[in-house]
């Protein structure tokens, strides 16, 4: 009988984004970006601080605003823990 080895791994997933960097690069205020995207300044601050994951619609709006792809703006990190 074959021995089955089960490997249990824990995967931690985290998201990062370059919204703050891109905004600063374009010398924009949070308020100006919020006005352009029709969201509140708190929403922009929460996204920049990684406290809130935006909806797909808002992520697409952000990427269109910065003229980047969503993949470039939002980084999906997967860590495999032993």
């Amino acid at each position: 009988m074959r021995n089955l080895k089960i490997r249990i791994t824990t995967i931690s997933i985290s998201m990062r984004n370059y919204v703050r960097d891109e905004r600063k690069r374009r010398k924009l205020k949070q308020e100006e970006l919020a006005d352009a995207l029709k969201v509140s300044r708190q929403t922009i601050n929460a996204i920049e601080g990684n406290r809130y994951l935006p909806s797909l619609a808002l992520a697409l709006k952000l990427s269109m605003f910065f003229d980047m792809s969503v993949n470039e703006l939002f980084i999906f990190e997967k860590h495999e823990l032993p």
Partner: protein
Amino acid sequence: MNSPKIIFLPWFFKLIGTIIVLFAFFLFFVKLNSGVSLQEFINFDTDIRNYAIYAILILGFFLIIFSKEKFEDELIAHFRARAVFITTILHSLFFFIFTFTSLTLHFINFPAIILMNSLFFFYIITFNIQKFHEKFKNKNNDNFD
């Protein structure tokens, strides 16, 4: 596909709701000062006017909950959803503890309207804690350069 939108009352209804809630609390304290004990007040079989105070309170809470924020966006919708989830857990605990004390200690024969009030109350508290926490973080993190 657009998600269906919930229709809320205009934002100034929140103000009206707050005034109604304050008025209900005022009536509550007037009632307590008139010599009615808290236990008598909660068990409103004795006086239907106590029930009216609960009803006014519910109306105030209702207006606060079902009125828009000044600026509605997806973060507010996210806070709302999370507040509903936290309220469900908190209120289940509250219901369990309240029922347990009521049955064992014969403390009070509490009316169902209290549970409705507490449900709304927990929702308002959890929603506003999230909102003000985010506002506080926003103030501490004003990176405009």
